[in-house]
């Protein structure tokens, strides 16, 4: 369990995190999404012990991480801007990792090399952007860490490799009960990968929930009646949005979909259809409900 409690981090006059709190349960894949400067990378660096919080605390399994070598041995971090030793090959980097990570496994390293089909004796500097990220992924996953943090996980990877990385992450989470924290600008990528999702904005978490809950908690109902009606007819329902065009209404509702359907059926609609929402649509409506303008928070690039 990662516990971020009221954390503040400031760089000069810029407040990267402002009293942020969240809890990341063990054994899950936790996604963070947000625009540039939202605080995703800063939060990751606080969790991995690179930064020391200016206020509040970051704890992993109840222990502070900063300068805590025991805990840091259980955490591996792949940053957005990758670093390799000058002129190093993957084998050279594996020596560095194995010298500092107690649980680094050469068997796992060789296995992952086979999966990603990278030449361990080629200079990493000659690799493409995607290959470098693969190399970093191989090294990170070979550490057999309990907490795996990927910043901009899929940046530069082609769709095949994205799936491969995704499946590797799943394996670690499933087989070793590892916890993965990943960030991305893309909601769609996180939608398929994460168990939990947090939306960060201006140094705080705007919204956090489990993906399954999110996906099932909001839905769109298209309904029509052969009699005049308006929104007041649905006052007993938990409605986030109501629009009517002609006799057909589109309703964004929260709650149990089956129960809502049964209750609507008793109202004898001429048209009744439940349409699942995409994650973006869910985010739009949830944030609207919270009083945020979605476009301000995630902007174009995120979508």
């Amino acid at each position, binding site marked *: 369990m990662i516990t971020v409690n009221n954390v503040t981090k400031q*760089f000069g006059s810029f407040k990267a995190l402002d009293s942020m709190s969240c809890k990341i349960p063990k054994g899950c894949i936790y996604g963070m999404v947000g625009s540039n400067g939202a605080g995703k990378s800063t939060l990751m*660096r606080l969790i*991995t*012990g*690179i*930064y*020391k919080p200016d206020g509040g605390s970051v704890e992993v399994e109840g222990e502070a991480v900063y*300068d*805590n*070598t*025991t805990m*840091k*041995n259980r*955490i*591996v*971090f792949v*940053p957005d*801007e*990758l*670093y390799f*030793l000058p002129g190093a090959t993957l084998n050279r980097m594996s*020596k*560095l990792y194995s*010298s*500092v*990570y*107690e649980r680094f496994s050469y068997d796992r390293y060789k296995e992952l090399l086979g999966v990603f089909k990278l030449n361990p004796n080629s200079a990493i500097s000659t690799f493409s952007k995607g290959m470098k990220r693969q190399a970093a992924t191989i090294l990170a996953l070979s550490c057999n860490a309990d907490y795996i943090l990927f910043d901009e996980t899929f940046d530069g990877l082609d769709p095949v490799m994205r799936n491969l990385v995704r499946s590797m992450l799943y394996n670690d989470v499933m087989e070793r009960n590892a916890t993965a924290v990943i960030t991305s600008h893309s909601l769609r990528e996180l939608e398929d990968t994460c168990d939990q999702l947090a939306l960060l904005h201006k140094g705080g978490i705007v919204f956090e929930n489990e993906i399954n809950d999110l996906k099932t908690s909001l839905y769109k109902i298209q309904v029509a009646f052969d009699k005049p009606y308006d929104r007041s007819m649905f006052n007993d329902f938990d409605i986030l949005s109501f629009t009517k065009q002609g006799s057909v209404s589109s309703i964004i509702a929260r709650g149990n979909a089956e129960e809502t359907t049964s209750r609507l059926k008793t109202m004898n609609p001429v048209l009744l259809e439940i349409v699942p929402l995409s994650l973006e649509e869910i985010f739009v409506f949830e944030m609207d409900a919270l009083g945020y303008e979605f476009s301000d928070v995630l902007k174009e690039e995120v979508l």
Partner: protein
Amino acid sequence: MKRVFSKSFFHEVFRQLTVPGAVSGGVFVLFSILIAIIRITSAEFGIPSALELSIAPIIYIYIAGFMLPIMAFGWLNKRSKSDFYHSIPLSRTQLYTSTVLAIFVWMCIGILAGTGVRALTALVMNEPFNYLMYGCVIVNMLIAALEIIGAVSLACAVTGTWFSNMSAALVILFIPRLIFAAISVMNESGTLFLRSNQILLVDPSYNLIAMPYGLVSMRVSFTNVWAMLYTFAYSIVLLLLGKLAFKRRKSELAGNASSSWLVQTVIRTFVCFPILLIPILLIRGFEPLLFFGVLSFVIYCMYELISTKSATKMLKAMPLFIVDIVLAGLVLIVPKTYDGINIRQPIDASNIASVRIKPISDGDYIKYADIKTYDIVITDYDVFELFEKASESKANDNAFYDYEIELSYKDGSKSVKQMELTIEESMQLESLLMRNKSFSEAQAGYPGGRNYYHCKGMSAEQTNMLARTLEKEFAELSTKERASLLDGSWYTGEPSITLVGCVGIDNYHYNFPLDNSLPKTLEMYLGFINDNEGEKALKLIDSFEDWTKREDESVSYTLELKGEGEGSFVRISSWDLIFKRVKVTENPVAETPYVDEGESNYIDEQNRDWEYDEYNEYYSDTEYVYEAGIPAEVNPEYCEIISILSRASLSTDVNNYLIVTIDANGIGDGELTRAYGANYTRATASVKLASDEDYARLNELIRKYEYDCEKF
């Protein structure tokens, strides 16, 4: 241990430093070999001094001491690298100590390899060498390496760019010592810090790396244990400060000028401070203060601009230049306040039980007797009083002699002090000490350390035989004669035998003149020169006429006579007889040469009496060829000297000998050539003239032309 040091990360950093570590160490090794070869092949005979031996390692330490830490801690200057290293499961302490140790090990390898090769070369080539003293130099170098690593590591910990790393390192290393030096220079008596050996922390010779070289003359304390301990302790302080700063350092500092506004202000203030001190320290005047003040301000601003890349920050920093001005003002005012204050601890003669005295030499050598007399305990109250008086007087910049004295007090305690005596005080001390029998006997003792002998023109075997004879003959002399011979050992002429040696960390040097006070040694010497070149020298005397007729473009024939004889014969310390003939040739370079007659550079002042005409031709293309000259008629008296010598025979008679050295030099065979010494030959012989008449006539001729003869 595991909590502060990571063996695996140490190996990792060590591996990362392989290229710079091995290359810098390798260059140092090659440099050391080169220096050893130059030293061994040079004409100079002697034991290399500690200062000479320290030059190559010091250069290495300055280069590697900056390069290796800045490379090893280079990751601190880039955000992505800094984040990576701070993310790995190592504490900041482990990162720091492992890196520092890896750097130090590489520097130790470099220092030991370079100095080891130097010592090995000396051993293999049988070069006169003081290995114990070199050991002290090496220990000093290792400590100095630690100091420079400490300073640069601290600089890296508080700054975040290469530029600010370097600037901060220079400030940390040199500014404190520079301020002490500046204060001392401004202190008229010069006693405040520069001569205040009793004040450990500010003794300039105690810090090998940060000594204000060139500002003042000073000794280098390679063998002073206190100096080593001081530098070591200072290094540890720097390293601990570095560790503290590193532990507090934020990863996000990477790429920023410094860790805080205060640190940035301090670095900026002191980066330009030396410029402000230039007129005070080097020029010793206030007129150029405005120029250097403006220059200092420009550097102040430039530093802020370059390090922060922000014009706004530079503008904000400008008013704080006042701090520099205030500091410079303090450097001017503070020493004046203390001027005239005697900061030396006075000695109370009545409390002293005994004293041991060792002169300190600014040169490479001290007398063997002075080394030995340090062990002699002096209980003469007059000596105590002399030191008491000297300790009360204010030190000054006039000529003085330095002594290291160990005072034993009546209460059983001891203290070591450095005393400065004026010439008068020093002479008085010497006469007082000579009243001590052990002391006066020690003054006549033959050097008994590790001795190396050198005798010009002799083989190693011959030199060895001469040395053994000299030692035996010396032992047979009276105390007075021995003391006299040792006192006159700074004789630089020939014939002589040179002795260099060392006792412990001290070197000594003697040049014994070989005259008939050492008859057996002299006889052996004369025999050896005749064995080596006697016949050749006689042939060269016989061939004098041939040399005068040679068609070379220039010919010279130099005769040097030294000797001693009975009666009125003169002892000639050096006397040259030169005949030179230069052939006029066409000028191949330019059409219209100009003539600069009587170029005095080519006429040795000592040979001006000879009929000797020459002029030099210079050509418009700046290349000139010295080849013109009008051959003088050979002086008949000159021919007579040669004639007398040609009748002489080889001899080893120590009471009546003449050492003849001939340098015959011919250039070219008619073709224009600029080669010098193309036909060079030299030989020496000890001869006896054929008759008393020859002695008388030669004596007469030499007196006519001599310039440096003295009555024997």
